[in-house]
């Protein structure tokens, strides 16, 4: 690890430049020689995914709440949002965030912000659907009982329905988060340097070892997604016992 990791694509210390060698070499060599670069990309991807994931979870839950609310306008808004975002390619969300938003006056210093906006807006639609199906899985009698002791809509949802819905929703939510981690690679195409972006740089620099470079990229994605998958199955098992 370098002492000072410069962020962004500007002046990069030499250690971060892809190591280029004319000699054909071992698969592992390319990966090991470029570990700092991989690590930097890994951290950027982790950061993008974590921030977008948290925003998407909050936004998605709010959208799901709007979808089951007694206010017709909120239901309509939520449904329209979800249907548009989840039925269009992620790349379009990125184009909107990176190109259309700045023209509408939403300016940001780094493309990373656009990437976070696109990823969280897109993922929130899927989370909203997952949470909504979880809400629907809670027997209707639970809400009726809560309403009959005088709880208001917000209380019924936050105290009775969502805590129970969460149990069934966690495994599908983790699947969505895994997809988010992989989707964050689209940011690489929008000038955001993350794992996939660095991987492309490396592949360009090591034309003879593209396969090795990509294997390295895949490994670092797995480093995030496999633990998430393990978490999903653990939670699933725990929920099964709890019932």
């Amino acid at each position, binding site marked *: 690890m370098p002492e000072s990791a410069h962020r962004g694509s500007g002046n990069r210390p030499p250690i971060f430049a892809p190591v280029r060698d004319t000699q054909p070499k071992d698969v592992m060599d390319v990966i090991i020689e470029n570990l700092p670069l991989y690590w930097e990309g890994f951290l950027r991807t982790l950061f993008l995914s974590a921030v977008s994931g948290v925003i998407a979870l909050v936004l998605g839950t709010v959208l799901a709440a709007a979808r089951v609310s*007694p206010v017709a306008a909120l239901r309509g808004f939520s449904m329209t949002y979800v249907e548009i975002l989840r039925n269009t390619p992620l790349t379009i969300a990125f184009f909107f965030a990176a190109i259309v938003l700045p023209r509408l006056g939403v300016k940001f210093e780094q493309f990373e912000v656009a990437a976070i906006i696109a990823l969280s807006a897109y993922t929130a639609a899927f989370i909203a659907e997952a949470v909504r199906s979880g809400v629907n899985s809670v*027997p209707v*009698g*639970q809400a*009726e*009982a*809560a*309403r*009959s*002791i*005088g*709880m*208001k809509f917000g*209380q019924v949802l936050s*105290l*009775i329905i969502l*805590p*129970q819905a969460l*149990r069934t929703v966690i495994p599908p939510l983790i699947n969505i988060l895994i997809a988010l981690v992989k989707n964050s690679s689209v940011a690489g195409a929008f000038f955001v340097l993350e794992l996939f972006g660095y991987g492309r740089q490396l592949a360009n620099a090591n034309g003879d070892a593209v396969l090795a470079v990509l294997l390295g990229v895949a490994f670092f994605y797995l480093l995030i997604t496999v633990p998430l998958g393990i978490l999903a199955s653990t939670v699933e098992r725990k929920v099964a016992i709890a019932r």
Partner: protein
Amino acid sequence: MFARFSLMTTQVPGDALVSLKAVNKHYGQLHVLKDINLNVRKGEVVVVIGPSGSGKSTLCRAINRLETIDDGKIAIDGKELPEEGKELAKLRADVGMVFQSFNLFAHKTILENVTLGPIKVKGVPKAQADKDAMALLERVGVGHQAPKLPAQLSGGQQQRVAIARALAMKPKVMLFDEPTSALDPEMINEVLDVMIQLAKEGMTMIVVTHEMGFARKAADRVVFMADGQIVEDATPEEFFTNPKSTRAKDFLSKLLTH
């Protein structure tokens, strides 16, 4: 009709804690509540019986607006049921409801099930709510189950907790929607005993049930419903020994042959 006549003579509308006037409800083509008029006075125990599909559960649920009605008026303690929102929530806090399927909050302990309403709806301090809840749980005979989850209790115990949960809100009236229909036979009595006790203490109750024994023992009035209409409204004695309508005679004869 006799029922209408007795309603008009014995009921003083101003005196009614729960009053339904010309209530109608349709499920699509099906006319489930046909021009229902019913007044329940403070302290009165009204048992609603009738064949399945007669609309008695719908009637019970309409009283705290878990079912909306198409037209007519429902008032509780002189106040007409408001639209969905804060006002309705407030009114519902005064109307206890016990469901056929208990509907205890599955993720909360027995004690939390009872304290949740007082704490979150009425703003009672937790220590006070806990104390009151324990007293209620003792009263219905499940005090020692307080730290358990609903799924760990028998049906009869769960239903008694559900009664305690409703009582914790200190309701003006209690609605029971077939409270013993989902119970094993040996658990029915433990729930009915609690209800009979409650009736003796002067609670206003509207009970939809198939338990004729309870109707005889605890009811002040029996309302017989069929096909969405109130066909008879009489004292238990009158209704069981001398039903006026053929519909009620038919219903009772079927009960007795089994």
